[in-house]
């Protein structure tokens, strides 16, 4: 099983570390090989021969954080480590005895070296014998196919470019248009606004890649949702600012999901998933070469598909079994966002301890919770390969590959099957406009098990350390779908971010709003895009276009 050094996040070494490396290279690290003691849960300690309890050579204390000098192997506590450097010139780099992490005594701070981590983790991996159960998806992933979305510019067959927009008093960006509520259809309008302004999707339809006039399904008289979307895109970007009624799409969607064909309020997220599903069905059939959605080239998957990694670890022997599953969105639990149940929160208060500053739930809190190591209950014992019997285990999710567009769904609607009740969780969730997803990537999550390391596990670095075409983990928000009110009688509104400005889309009413309004809203679905997608979209929106309405009048709608 190969282990590769990734170029993910290599902090620059301090001068002292650089000097040390120049002089000693990696020999010093390797000489510690026999002193590492490995544990099942990924921890690695330094164990000196004949000494059970390491002590500071200056003050004999054993209770504090201890560091062992890389050069002379003397042990110092945190209070005396600086003294050691001062007394011994050049003895700057040490290793934390308990954690096997590099420390620079002169900088009084932790430092990182991927070569050190490689030595440490290699030792650990040999001991653990980590196994990877790979499905067909992984084989496809490892085939090094670089999936890049070739998003073409708006300049397609339907538009002309002009140097100046004639409607000067209308300063809204192109494509911004209200949607009429056709009877509790705000759930649909909200999602449509977000999708219409998702750059990859917008470019796909506007460049004619699913042209309703050329669609084979439609010519056969079959239902085709992508065709209905084609109509909508044309209408939205026509330049006409009067509110549009997406009746065709609603009707088509009803025909597909007859159980939801009522005038009752539906769940926006449910609509989102089913719409993407239909697009995949219509689009993907011809383009999907594999059974799994992994390599599907339909617009849904190109834009939204990512890969989740699930590790199940036996708590007895530490061996892990890994599986990969594709996803088109991530649903996040809102309740236990701070990592502890409301019960523990109460307990802390009674015992007189400092009140758990029940800080506001944040999106990063939710993502932390999503990627936490979860101990599976005793009734969920799994068959461990190396132990040979059913053992208690823990499960941990992480993101193996990020999609172009990341949809984060906040689970605000709780449906209890036992009590046959549903409720809405109203608590405010704080979320950022810029989101860095690297802490939730598999390489980071797995890496954390082995202490503070820079290291690629199991080829995790493979995808990320490739050339300039590798996606970054930096995301920028472009749409927020909010829900206000009660479960049965609520209302969906979408906030769109276009060219740095925020617009509130409340069915037929669109107006520009301040950033604070968006920050303070009750988010339900958050749409993030990789920063390069946003940057590209910025450039594209800067082109002024004459609409079809001027050049070629629109026949319907």
């Amino acid at each position, binding site marked *: 099983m190969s282990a590769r050094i990734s170029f993910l996040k290599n902090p620059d070494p301090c001068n002292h570390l650089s000097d040390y490396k120049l002089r000693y290279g990696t020999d010093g690290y390797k000489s510690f090989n026999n002193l590492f003691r490995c544990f099942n849960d990924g921890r690695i300690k330094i164990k000196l021969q004949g*000494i*059970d*309890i390491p*002590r500071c*050579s200056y*003050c*004999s204390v*054993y209770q504090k*954080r201890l560091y062992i000098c890389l050069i002379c192997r003397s042990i110092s506590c*945190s209070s005396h480590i600086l003294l050691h450097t001062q007394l011994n010139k050049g003895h700057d780099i040490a290793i934390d005895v308990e954690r096997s992490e590099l*420390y620079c005594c002169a*900088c*009084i*701070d*932790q430092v990182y070296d991927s070569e050190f981590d490689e030595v440490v983790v290699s030792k650990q991996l040999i001991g653990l014998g980590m196994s990877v159960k790979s499905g067909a998806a992984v084989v496809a992933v490892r085939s090094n196919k670089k999936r890049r979305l070739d998003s073409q510019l708006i300049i397609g067959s339907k538009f002309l470019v002009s140097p100046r927009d004639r409607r000067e008093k209308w300063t809204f960006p192109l494509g911004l248009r209200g949607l009429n509520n056709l009877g509790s259809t705000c759930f649909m309008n909200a999602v449509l606004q977000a999708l219409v302004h998702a750059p990859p999707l917008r470019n796909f339809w506007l460049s004619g890649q699913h042209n309703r006039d050329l669609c084979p399904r439609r010519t056969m008289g079959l239902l085709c949702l992508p065709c209905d979307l084609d109509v909508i895109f044309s209408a939205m970007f026509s330049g006409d600012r009067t509110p549009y009624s997406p009746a065709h799409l609603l009707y088509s969607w009803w025909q597909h999901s007859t159980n939801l064909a009522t005038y009752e309020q539906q769940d926006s997220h449910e609509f989102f998933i089913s719409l993407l599903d239909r697009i995949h069905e219509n689009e993907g059939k011809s383009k999907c070469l594999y059974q799994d959605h992994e390599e599907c080239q339909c617009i849904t998957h190109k834009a939204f598909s990512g890969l989740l990694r699930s590790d199940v670890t036996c708590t007895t022997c530490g061996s892990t079994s890994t599986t990969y599953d594709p996803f088109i969105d991530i649903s996040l639990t809102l309740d236990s966002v*701070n*990592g*502890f149940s409301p019960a*523990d929160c109460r*307990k*802390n208060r009674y*015992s007189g*301890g*400092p009140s*758990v500053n029940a*800080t506001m739930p944040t999106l990063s*809190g939710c993502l*932390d919770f999503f990627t936490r190591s979860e101990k599976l209950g005793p009734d969920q014992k799994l068959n461990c390969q190396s132990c040979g019997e059913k053992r208690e285990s823990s499960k941990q999710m992480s993101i193996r590959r990020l999609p172009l567009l990341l949809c984060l769904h906040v689970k605000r609607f709780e449906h209890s099957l036992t009590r046959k009740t549903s409720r809405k969780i109203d608590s405010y969730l704080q979320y950022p406009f810029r989101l860095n997803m690297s802490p939730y990537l598999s390489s980071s999550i797995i890496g954390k098990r082995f202490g503070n390391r820079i290291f690629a596990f199991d080829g995790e670095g493979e995808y990320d350390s490739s050339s300039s075409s590798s996606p970054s983990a930096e995301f920028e928000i472009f749409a927020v779908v909010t829900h206000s009110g009660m479960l049965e009688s609520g209302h969906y509104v979408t906030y769109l971010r276009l060219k740095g400005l925020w617009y509130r889309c409340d069915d037929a009413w669109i107006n520009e709003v301040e950033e604070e309004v968006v920050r303070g809203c009750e988010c339900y679905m958050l749409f993030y895009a990789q920063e390069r997608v946003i940057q590209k979209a910025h450039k594209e929106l800067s082109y002024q276009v004459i609409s079809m309405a001027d050049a070629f009048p629109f026949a319907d709608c």
Partner: protein
Amino acid sequence: MNHSVNRSPTLDEDDAADDFEKDEVTLREVINIKLVESGEKENLMELVRDRLVECGWKDEMRIACREHVKKKGRKDVTVDELIRVITPKGRASVPDSVKAELLNRIQNFIVSAAL
């Protein structure tokens, strides 16, 4: 390694209180040695680790660290500083149930090791 060789010579032999303290410290050390030798120390460490994660203490600490880093700025914070600032908060917020359980385990150990 003979511990007394490394001990710094700052004891006031006339002070009885100091003597008492010296004995206390020696006793603590003896217990610690026995714990380590028998491997019970590892078990206890793992137990504490598990309990502190379960009750959310670890997450609390992570949030506290984040807050501090946000305040000081990413470039200006060292590991040492974080330890210095967070340790008192951490010690203070360990739930009593965890302390009680740990104490119980150590007491049982002492009894069983016939110290």
